[in-house]
C-alpha cells in the first residue's frame, strides 16, 4: 500500500499548491474519503465498440471500479468507481467552431487525467476549451462523490460532492457541494455550496443560491468524513442492487429492449420497468417500476423509481425522479432530485425545463404546469411560485430580475433558446430521433458493446495500483 499512500500525498500537494491563493487545504477533505484498502477490491473495465476509438494508456494509477470508453490516458492518478466516458470526443477531421474561428481537429481528442483523484465522478462530453482542442485535460484535480466533469477541462481544482462543472474550463477553483457551474471559463474562484450559475457573457447570467440551512439536509460535507444527507442515504440504500450487476459476468436483460434502444448491462433494472423505442439507459442508472416512453433517456447515476416519462425526456447525469409523472419533452438537469410520494405524486407538464441541481421534495401532490422553467428548492406550492416561471414570461426578461434567491441579468429569450438547443442536441446525440436509417445516436451505437476487465496488484508495495497498461485495436 506504500505506493498508493505516496501517490495520494503527491496528489494532495499538487492540488494544494494550485489552491494556495484561496488558502484551501484539500487534505482533510479527501485523505479518508475512500479507505485505501477499497482500492484493491474492485476491477476496472473498459468498453469495446466499432463506433468509438479504442485507445487506453494507464500509468501508475489506481482505477478501482472505474469504467473507460474511447481514448483515455491516466497518469499518477487515483480513480474510484468513476466513469470516464469518451463517446462524445472530437474526432480527427471535425471542425471546431468558436466565435469567428473554425479550427480543424488534427487528431482524435483524448481525455487526459494526470495527478488527480476522482471519486464516483462522471467525466463526459468533449473539451469546450478552444485553446485545448485535442486534449480534454483533468490535472491536479480532486472531485468527490457524484461530481460531474462535463466537457470541462480542469487544472488545480477541487469539486465537492454532487458538484457539476459543465462546458467550462476551470483553473485553481473550488466548486462547493451541489454547485452547478456553466460559465465558459473560470479561474481562482471559490464557488459556495449550492450555487447554480449559468453564464454566457453578453447574453445572460443566471445565479441561484440554495439556502444552506435547508440544503444541509440533502447534502452535508465537512472535513474528515464522507458526505452525508438525503442524497447519499438514497443512493447508499440501493447500493446492494448494483453489486449483482458488477459481480456477474454474463447478464441477460430482465426487460424487453427494442432493437433501436440501448440498455447498458451495468444498469440496474427492477420489475415493472418499460423501455420504449430509441431509449438510452446508461451504466449505473437505476430503474424501478419506471415507464420510459419513446426517445427518453436515463444517463449515468440516474434513478427513476415509480415514475412515468412520456417520451423525449432527458434525465441528465445524476438526476433522480421518484414517484413522478413527466409529460413529453421535459428536461431534468444534472443531479436534480425530484421526489413525490405514493400519495403525493409530482406531475410535470410537457416542455418544462427543470434546471440542473433543482430539488423538489413534496409530501402533498404538486403539479408544475406545462412550459415552465423551474429552479431552486421546492417543498410546497409557495416555493414553486417563487422558484418557477413560464418559459414564455421568462423569455420576456430583458435587463434583469431578482426573484427570491435568483438573480438574472440579460436576455431571457436567449437563455431559454440556449437551453432548448442544448436539450435538442442531447436528444439527438442520444439517438432519440433515430428513424431506422438516419439520426443514429448513443442508443443505437452503444448496443454492440463488450467489456473487458483489468485488475490491480493484490499485494505488495504496489497493492491497489494497476500495472502500466496500453490498449489499442
Amino acid at each position, binding site marked *: 500500500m506504500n505506493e498508493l499512500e505516496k501517490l495520494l500525498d503527491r496528489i494532495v500537494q499538487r492540488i494544494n499548491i494550485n489552491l494556495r491563493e484561496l488558502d484551501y487545504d484539500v487534505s482533510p477533505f479527501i485523505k479518508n474519503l475512500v479507505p485505501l484498502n477499497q482500492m484493491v477490491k474492485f476491477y476496472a473495465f473498459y468498453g469495446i465498440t466499432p463506433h468509438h476509438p479504442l485507445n487506453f494508456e494507464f500509468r501508475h494509477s489506481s482505477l478501482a471500479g472505474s469504467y473507460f470508453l474511447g481514448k483515455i490516458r491516466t497518469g499518477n492518478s487515483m480513480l474510484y468507481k468513476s466513469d470516464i466516458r469518451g463517446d462524445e470526443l472530437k474526432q480527427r477531421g471535425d471542425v471546431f467552431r468558436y466565435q469567428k474561428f473554425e479550427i480543424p481537429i488534427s487528431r482524435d481528442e483524448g481525455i487526459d487525467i494526470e495527478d488527480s483523484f476522482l471519486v464516483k465522478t462522471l467525466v463526459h462530453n468533449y473539451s469546450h476549451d478552444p485553446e485545448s482542442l485535442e486534449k480534454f485535460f483533468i490535472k491536479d484535480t480532486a472531485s468527490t462523490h457524484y461530481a460531474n466533469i462535463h466537457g470541462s477541462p480542469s487544472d488545480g481544482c477541487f469539486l465537492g460532492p454532487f458538484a457539476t462543472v459543465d462546458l467550462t474550463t476551470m483553473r485553481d477553483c473550488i466548486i462547493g457541494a451541489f454547485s452547478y457551474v456553466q460559465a465558459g471559463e473560470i479561474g481562482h474562484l471559490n464557488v459556495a455550496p449550492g450555487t447554480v450559475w449559468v453564464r454566457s457573457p453578453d447574453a445572460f447570467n443566471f445565479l441561484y443560491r440554495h439556502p444552506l440551512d435547508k440544503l444541509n439536509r440533502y447534502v452535508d460535507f465537512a472535513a474528515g468524513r464522507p458526505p452525508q444527507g438525503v442524497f447519499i442515504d438514497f443512493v447508499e440504500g440501493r447500493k446492494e442492487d448494483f453489486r449483482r450487476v458488477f459481480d456477474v459476468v454474463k447478464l441477460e436483460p430482465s426487460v424487453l429492449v427494442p432493437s433501436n434502444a440501448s440498455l447498458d448491462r451495468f444498469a440496474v433494472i427492477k420489475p415493472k420497468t418499460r423501455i420504449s423505442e430509441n431509449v438510452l439507459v446508461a451504466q449505473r442508472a437505476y430503474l424501478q417500476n419506471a415507464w420510459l416512453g419513446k426517445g427518453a433517456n436515463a444517463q449515468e447515476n440516474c434513478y427513476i423509481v415509480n415514475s412515468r416519462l412520456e417520451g423525449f425526456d432527458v434525465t441528465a447525469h445524476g438526476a433522480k425522479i421518484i414517484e413522478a409523472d413527466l409529460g413529453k419533452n421535459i428536461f431534468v438537469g444534472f443531479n436534480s432530485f425530484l421526489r413525490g410520494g405514493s400519495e403525493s405524486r409530482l406531475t410535470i407538464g410537457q416542455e418544462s425545463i427543470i434546471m440542473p441541481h433543482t430539488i423538489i421534495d413534496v409530501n402533498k401532490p404538486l403539479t408544475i404546469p406545462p412550459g415552465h422553467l423551474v429552479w431552486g428548492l421546492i417543498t410546497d406550492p409557495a416555493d414553486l411560485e417563487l422558484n418557477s416561471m413560464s418559459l414564455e414570461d421568462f423569455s420576456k426578461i430583458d435587463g434583469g430580475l431578482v426573484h427570491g434567491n435568483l*438573480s438574472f441579468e440579460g436576455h431571457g429569450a436567449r437563455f431559454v433558446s440556449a437551453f432548448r438547443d442544448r436539450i435538442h442536441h442531447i436528444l439527438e446525440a442520444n439517438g432519440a430521433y433515430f428513424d431506422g436509417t438516419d439520426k443514429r445516436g448513443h442508443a443505437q451505437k452503444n448496443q454492440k458493446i463488450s467489456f473487458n476487465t483489468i485488475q490491480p496488484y493484490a499485494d505488495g508495495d504496489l497493492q491497489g495500483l494497476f500495472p502500466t497498461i496500453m490498449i489499442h485495436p
Partner: protein
Amino acid sequence: MSDFLVKELMVPLSEYATVPEGSTLFDAVLALEQVQVEFDHTKYKHRAVLILDQDQRVIGKLGQLDVLRALEPKNENLGDINALSQYGFSSSFVRNVRKQRRLQASPLKDICSKAAKLKVDDFMQAPSEGEIIDQEASLEIAVLQLVMGHHLSLLVTRARKIVGILCLTDVFAAVFHTMKECEIIL
C-alpha cells in the same frame, strides 16, 4: 511650494472629537457635535471622531462614511449581493439590487435608532501607514500623502505619539493661500 509645516495646520488632539473604545455610535455623534460647538465655528470642519484606548492612544478613526456604512442592512442577502460581482454581474445590476434591497429594508428612522446602539469599534478604521505624518513635515509631503491615499485627513505624530489631525480642508486652504500669493508676485 510654501513654508507651511503640518503642525501649523493641524487641529490638536485636545480640540478634536474623541471617544473611548467601546462607545456607541451615538456617543461618537454626540462627541462630534460637542467639539463643533466648543472649538470650531466652521460648520463642517470636524468630519471624524478618534477612538482612544485606555492609555489615551489613538487606535482608530470613525469617519462620516463609516457611520453611514453602519446603517447598511445587515442580513444574509448582503453577502449574496457582494458575491454578484464575483459571478460576472454588471456593476449597474449590482447597484440596482442594492437599491431594491435598501427600499425593502426598514425606514431610515428605524435603522438610525438601531445603528446608534452599535459599537464604534466595529466600524472604525485603524490608522494605516500612509495616514500618519510627522508634525514637522512640510505641506508638500502632506499633499502627497492625501492624494496618494485618497484620505480626508492625516493623523499627526510627535515622537510617534498622535498629537493631532490634519484635515484636507485645512491643507486645501493653505494651498489656495499659497496660489494666491504666487499670483500676486507674478
